[in-house]
């Protein structure tokens, strides 16, 4: 119970901010806001927790909980004072009587979601410490943070096999939940994982409209590799959540319009860009792959600003990203050791590996094998098929769908380059990680395809 309260406190504070600055006028927008508030709440509270630990407040102490609560009370109070920027300029749509088919898709989605949640709970009970990487990396770092309040938490930086350079969003969040609970429990990390899993699905479903949203939700949950990663307690589903949140907030319109039926984005709305900046920075604070994502989104934002000759949206995004990016940069430069992927690497070595056709062949073969088997045995080639549809949509629909596909394609290309230039054994590196890398992209890929389908029915959505 206390673990849940720990997650709800920052979510409520951020929810107040979102409500006061953007407002919501539909259940769909409210669910999207809740998903954003929960995921951003976990993210921002991890930064606050790390700051408290760094100034010497032990997570196992009552002072930690009181200080943390005080911070979020102040945030909520500041949020309450924020002007309500989105006064309703349209009337709510008059509800129409739903037909039989209108109930079918949401009911089917509801049943799939319930069974999926039951499977996640069953997995969490069967393996309460999560998958290998969860206890060997993420929850282990959380234990160091929680137990080593006297400063000995820094000892984990010396454990090279535990990826000490990984950012601390997840470990600091778990330590914070334990602080509120008053003891370590396997419920804390499991709860955080489930929240990110639900938020990922909710963001896709609420960004889309009509029956398509339910089909998209079922496609997401039907991918068993994605579903089994939710209770795994690793950082891949949280990263997937922040990637899809960034794209949903930037390219969707759930935060931009005061009327859910209106498809006209409000150009004056700055909130989506502030939130997109924050969620993209959270991706970098979750996992190293998120750093590539934040760089790509920044690049796209710069291109858009130049084409529009209007840098305001870019500046709002930077404002949203700055607090978390400062934490990321500080962590990387002042605290964490260098990544095993770059340590000992030189430009000559990287170029030699990049020009080695055998390495390319190995990576391509392994990635293709895993992509075809992703979510097997129930699915075959689901990731490649959905990727091909995304590319088709990008060509056919253009606009936002094309930009989203480009971002995801470039992210995949970056992962490929890392594999080809890896200092580790390629086979080991690819086989132990590629399924999870595809999980990171899955919600965003599904969103891209269905936004494309939606646009092909209702007309393209311009981005630039």
């Amino acid at each position, binding site marked *: 119970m206390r673990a849940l309260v720990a997650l709800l406190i920052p979510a409520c504070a951020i929810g107040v901010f979102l409500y006061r600055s953007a407002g919501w006028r539909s259940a769909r927008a409210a669910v999207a806001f809740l998903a954003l508030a929960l995921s951003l709440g976990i993210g921002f509270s991890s930064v606050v927790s790390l700051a408290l630990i760094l100034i010497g407040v032990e997570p196992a102490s009552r002072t930690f909980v009181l200080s943390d609560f005080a911070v979020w009370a102040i945030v909520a109070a500041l949020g309450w004072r924020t002007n309500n920027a989105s006064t309703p300029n349209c009337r709510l749509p008059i509800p129409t009587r739903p037909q039989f088919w209108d109930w079918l*898709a949401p009911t*089917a989605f509801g*049943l*799939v979601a319930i*069974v*999926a949640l*039951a*499977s*996640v709970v*069953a*997995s969490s009970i*069967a*393996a*309460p*410490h999560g998958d*290998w990487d969860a*206890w*060997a990396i993420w*929850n*282990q770092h959380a*234990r*160091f943070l929680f*137990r*080593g309040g*006297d400063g*000995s*938490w820094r*000892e*984990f930086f*010396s*454990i090279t*096999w*535990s990826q000490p350079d990984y950012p601390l969003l997840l470990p600091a969040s778990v330590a914070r939940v334990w602080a509120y609970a008053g003891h370590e429990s396997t419920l804390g990390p499991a709860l955080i994982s489930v929240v990110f899993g639900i938020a990922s699905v909710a963001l896709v479903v609420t960004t889309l409209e009509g*029956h398509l949203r339910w*089909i998209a939700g*079922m*496609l997401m*949950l*039907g*991918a*068993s590799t994605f*579903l*089994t990663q939710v*209770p795994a307690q690793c950082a891949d589903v949280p990263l997937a959540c922040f990637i899809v949140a960034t794209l949903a907030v930037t390219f969707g319109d759930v935060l931009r319009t005061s009327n859910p039926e209106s498809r006209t984005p409000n150009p004056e709305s700055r909130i989506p860009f502030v939130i997109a900046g924050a969620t993209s920075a959270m991706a970098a604070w979750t996992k190293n792959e998120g750093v590539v994502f934040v760089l790509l989104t920044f690049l796209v934002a710069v291109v858009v600003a130049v084409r529009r000759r209007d840098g305001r949206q870019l500046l709002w995004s930077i404002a949203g990203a700055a607090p978390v990016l400062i934490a990321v940069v500080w962590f990387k430069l002042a605290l964490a050791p260098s990544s095993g992927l770059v340590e000992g690497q030189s430009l000559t070595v990287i170029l030699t590996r990049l020009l080695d056709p055998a390495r390319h062949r190995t990576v391509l073969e392994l990635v293709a094998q895993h992509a075809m088997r992703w*979510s097997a*045995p*129930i*699915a075959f080639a689901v990731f490649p098929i959905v990727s091909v549809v995304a590319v088709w949509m990008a060509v056919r629909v253009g606009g936002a769908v094309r930009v989203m596909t480009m971002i995801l394609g470039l992210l995949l290309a970056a992962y490929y380059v890392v594999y080809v230039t890896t200092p580790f054994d390629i086979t080991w590196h690819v086989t132990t990680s590629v399924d999870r890398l595809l999980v990171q992209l899955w919600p965003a890929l599904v969103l891209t395809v269905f936004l494309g*389908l939606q646009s*092909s029915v209702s007309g393209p959505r311009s981005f630039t």
Partner: protein
Amino acid sequence: MPPSLTRAVALVVVVWAFVSVIAAGRNAVMRGADPVTALEAEFRSLSHALPSSGPVGFLRYEIDDDRADRVMTYYVAQYTLAPHVVEKRTDLEFVIVAPDAVRAGVDDRLAGFMPIATSKEGYSVYQRRAP
């Protein structure tokens, strides 16, 4: 895309999602005992024998030290005993010893050490008694 094809694709997705989540649920329920939970309980029962801070040694397996189950044992020891750092060396005051890591007969790597705590499955903490 024609509406009939759209409906057909949607139906395939619905059926596939149902089958997939049911299979995932079944796999989750059928999952065997968690080795991490069992190992964690073993090492947790030894933690009272260790000081509150400082590195702890871990006796390397004589052969196949990099076998997956042995790597897991070492990693779970580290996971359980944090914020101690568990290192694969024996020149420290306290050393964790897995039952199958000790050489048959006399293991000279543990010369000067005495077992001070042993778990249910035979994992032990050895403490250095002589220089």
